[in-house]
Each structure stands twice: as C-alpha cells, then as structure tokens.
C-alpha cells in the first residue's frame, strides 16, 4: 500500500489544490457549525473540527434531488429527460464513522436486483478521504460498539491520521492512489506505521461510551409486543431531526412539481418519525402512533437491517443524541432493550 507523510499545515493547501481540478467537499465553518460544502476558490477548509453538524450523506443522497423532467404536450405530460449528474468529486476529511455509513448505504442502494443509479453514480465518481479521530470528538461517540473505530479505513479510499507533526496518508484503494500526486513525495517509514497503530489503540480505548448494540438483536426478535415500547416516545415531538441528522437513514419521498408547462419529479428525505409517512389514502395507518414509529426506528437500525444486510444501521456518531430537542438518547434505548 502506498503511504506518504505530509506536513500538518499542508493539508488545507492540498484540498485547495484539488479543488482547482475536481469538485471537493470539505469541512467549512458556516456560522456556528461545521458543514461539508463544495470548496469554492476563496473558501478555507477547516480540518481542526470535531465532526460536521450534518452527516455528509447528502453528497451521495442529496436532501432533494431531481430524478427526471417532464413537459406538457397536447396528449398530457410526458417524460423529457433523465437528470443524473455526477461530477468527479472528492469528499475530503470525513470522520471514519461517516465513511462507515457509506458502506452501509451501499448495501441498500446498490443491490443486485434494483440499483439506484442516482446514488451509485455519485458514489462511484467520488473519492472518500477519511480523517481519523485521534482524540474522540464527543462524549456521545460510540463507534466502537457498532463495528467502527476512531482510526479506521472502512469506507475510505485514503485515510489520513495525525501522527504528531505529520499526517500519515494511506492510499487504501486504487481510486485513492489516483490522487496520490497531490500528496507530495515523502514516503512514510515503518516508524510512522508504529506511531499510527499506537495512536489507533489509544484512540479506540478512549471511546468511553459503550452500548450493547450487538446483544439486542435476539431480544428484538422476540419483543415486538413488549410494553417497553410504551416508554420511549412519550416526549418525542415527531420532528424527524434524529433521522435527518443520521448518516445511515435513507428514507425518502417522491413528488412532482410543475411550473408552467414543465415539471420535475424529485426525491427528498423523509422520516419514519412522521405520522404521514405510512398513512394510506383510506386513512389506515399501520404505524398509527409515535410508539410504533419509535419502535420502527429502533428495530430498523438494530434488527431489520441486520436481518436484511447482516449489519447494524448505526455508526455511533451520536448526532441524534446531540440534536434531539427533548434529549431522547438512542444509547439508553439500546441499554434498556438489553435488559428486557
């Protein structure tokens, strides 16, 4: 594997140089938040960040996205064009938990039978550069409980690890190697490797928040009707924030918009926390209260996804924990389930 060393203060310059040739999504400061945004010529990337406020899933699965266009004819509205665009892009400096989420989303969008071209094209044309967490960013991080690690190359084409004065850049995939030319010529030595594994071990140990995520699957298998489900949703506002923030949530709506004689069919993020999500025209709603919706969210992450893809649909980023306006904590939910 190709490995190089780059000076710490050179990183922003590398991102900016790449941005001259490719579409580079990098963390930038926006008001009080750090968000992934396309790096414009005057923009300064901000790599000393903890984690981005929003999950970077919108790079592959935008909040709203046009699927196709149509136009009016005397015989009715007819299809006019497909709108699947994907520019050669780089996602520069995502946290390993978020890179892990792409691997989970791939399982859904890139299945054998039905391929979601909109997601897949963007995914294919994007190189993912992960920035390892040498210090766990937040007390709410629990990646190690859900098959992740703070220094991990899962889902990454290039992994950057801060090993003191330098970043160790590891070119994990061929896609990553293609960008090696931006990273200078300093080859990494064995000492850098040793340093990295020391740092990785320490980082892993310092993730204090631990949940029994792997233990609850057999419990969920047999506790669909447990009265426990009455105890989570009481204060839930059904705002959907948890699902919008979540890097692995993928539910969407499809709707049409018309202006004059032209229109578009778009998809936009939706949420299982919303009452209308499953409501049928007849008025029947299989998930008629917030209890069923919260159960769906927990079940989907820790049982259904495991049944379908043999993977937990949570990467332990803690965003839902930090953003829920009424402090519902998925870690506590998992903890409580483990005691049923």
């Amino acid at each position, binding site marked *: 594997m190709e490995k190089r060393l780059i000076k710490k203060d050179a990183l922003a310059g590398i991102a900016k140089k790449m941005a001259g040739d490719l579409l580079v999504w990098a963390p930038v400061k926006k008001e009080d938040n750090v968000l992934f945004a396309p790096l414009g010529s005057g923009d300064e990337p901000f790599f000393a960040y903890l984690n981005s406020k929003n999950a970077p899933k919108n790079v592959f699965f935008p909040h709203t996205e046009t699927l*196709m266009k149509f136009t009016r004819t005397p015989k*009715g*509205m007819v*299809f006019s064009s497909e709108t699947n665009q994907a520019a050669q892009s780089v996602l520069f400096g995502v946290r390993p938990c978020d890179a892990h989420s792409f691997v989970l989303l791939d399982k859904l*969008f890139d299945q054998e039978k039905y391929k*979601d071209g909109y997601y897949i094209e963007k995914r294919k044309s994007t190189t993912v550069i992960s920035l390892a967490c040498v210090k766990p960013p937040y007390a709410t991080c629990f990646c190690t409980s859900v098959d992740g690690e703070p220094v991990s190359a899962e889902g990454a084409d290039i992994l950057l690890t801060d090993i003191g004065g330098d970043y160790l850049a590891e070119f994990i995939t061929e896609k990553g190697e293609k960008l090696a030319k931006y990273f200078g010529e300093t080859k990494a030595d064995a000492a850098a490797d040793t340093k990295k594994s020391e740092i990785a071990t320490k980082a892993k140990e310092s993730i204090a928040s631990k949940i029994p995520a792997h233990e609850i699957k057999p419990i969920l298998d047999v506790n669909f009707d447990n009265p426990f489900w009455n105890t989570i949703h009481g204060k839930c506002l059904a705002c959907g924030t948890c699902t919008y923030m979540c890097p692995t949530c993928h539910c969407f709506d499809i709707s049409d918009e018309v202006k004059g004689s032209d229109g578009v069919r778009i998809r936009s993020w*939706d949420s299982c926390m919303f009452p209308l999500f499953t409501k*049928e*025209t007849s008025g029947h709603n299989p998930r008629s209260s917030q209890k069923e919706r919260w159960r*769906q969210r927990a079940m989907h992450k820790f049982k259904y996804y495991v049944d379908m893809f043999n993977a937990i649909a949570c990467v332990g980023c803690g965003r839902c924990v930090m953003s829920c306006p009424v402090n519902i904590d998925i870690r506590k939910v998992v903890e409580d389930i483990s005691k049923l």
Partner: protein
Amino acid sequence: MQNPYIPYPVIVDKIITEVDTKDIKTFRFKFVNPEDEQKYAYIPGQFGELSIYGKGESPIGIASSPTQKGYVEFTVQKAGVVTSALHEMEEGMMMGIRGPLGNSWPLEFLEGKNIVIVGGGFAFTTLRSLINYMIYGDNRKRFGNITVIYGARNPGLLLYKDELIEWQKRDDLNINVTVDKGDATWKGREGFVPAVCKEVAPSKENAVAVICGPPVMIRFTLPVFFELGFSKENIITSLEMRMKCGIGKCGRCNVGSKYVCKDGPVFTLAELDKLTPEY
C-alpha cells in the same frame, strides 16, 4: 441497465367503467415503444406504479394476464390525488408505468394443485389476472380444480361482469359469485364471502387458497379455511402498504424485515406469521 425510477411511456388505449358508482375503472395501456412490452414481462400478482407526470405515482396491481398480448390493464378505484387524475384521463392520452414490481402469485407452487380463489371488492384485480392465466389454452392442464368465490357489496359493484359470465359457461371452472345484497334483477347468490366459503366448502386435499379482499373479509374468511383444514403454508394473500419507490429503497413499506414492494406483496400466512403484525 434500465433506471427503475423512469416509467415506460404508454398510451391510454381503452377505459372501461366497471361499476355503477363509476369510481372504479379499468385502464388498458399500450406501450409507446413496442419493445417495452417485452421488458414489461410480468407474472400474475405483480404490480406497477402508474405514473402521471405532475401528479405522482400509485402502486396498482396488474389486472390483465400475461397471456393477453399487446396491452396491460389495471383496475383502479378513485381515491386521492393520482387515482383521481387517472380517472380524468381520456383515451389517447399519454402517461407512464413502472414495473413490473414485487414478487407474484407463486405459479410453480400452484401447479398441479387444486386452486381456491377468494376475492372481495376491488382487490379482485390480481386474482382476475391469475384466473385468466390459469384458464388460458394449455395452461389449464397444469392446474387441478379451480374454485372461485368472489363477492361484492351489490351487483353494481362487481368487476369484470362480462368475464364472469364467460367463466360461468366453462365446465372446468367452479365460479361462485355472491353479493351482500341483491337487487330486483339479481338472480345469483346472496351472502357474505365467508358464509359462501363455508357453503362451498372446498376440500383441503392438495389445495391452495388464494385470498384477497378488504381486511374484514379476510378476518372472517381465514377461520373458515382453518376449519376446513387448510394449513398456513397453503393460504396465500397479498398485502397493501403505502408505497413510493416500489423497489425497496424509500423505506416506507416494510413489515418487519421485509419490504412489501420488493419481497411481497404476496405472502403465505406462514410467512406473515414470522413478520411483525404491523400492516
């Protein structure tokens, strides 16, 4: 590879108003590009997304049988935005259909068996597809006795009236049409579907029951079949959930770990028992 979100362009070839209340119509579509008919090769029990640009899409069971060449039919009740727009359509207009989607009635499993078909209300559509498939030419030999029990609230609400008459003329079909309440001209059977099932009492020997209808009908019909000795492996039904993508991505239509759009809509009762009772 075909983008599964993009509908095939179709022309509304024929519209048949099925019921006296005029809120259920059968739409016959022809493909604008003849080669699309091949790509839309379907099996009874599958559904499509009817797509009216500017309004949206609705999942609707395919009512025609693959043995009917040159077109594809759907029978639709006027309900909300898309289905109302569809009911406003005129012959010659263009729209789109996606699919075929979902699994299907398990034809291989049904082969060589006696088939009992029970339908109520407008859920009869994909059962009609199955019947027309099974009785078409040499196909008929591949199945044992075929018993059909079909009910509607009143005679005016029966679908496919001409076909029902044709089917009744055949001696290789046992057709039992019933209405909850007849009218002055009705000479057929009166009574609810579950009661008629009890009367007809199909044998469980080498038999499979395919049951589709409104929830109340299903609720009262199932015990009749259990009493007749049908096992849960030999009772098949089709589920409905709110849908959008139809291909297991948008996350809306799951029952437990299965997406009704992709893994269903057809399930045996034995399979449903293993899922969460949330539909």
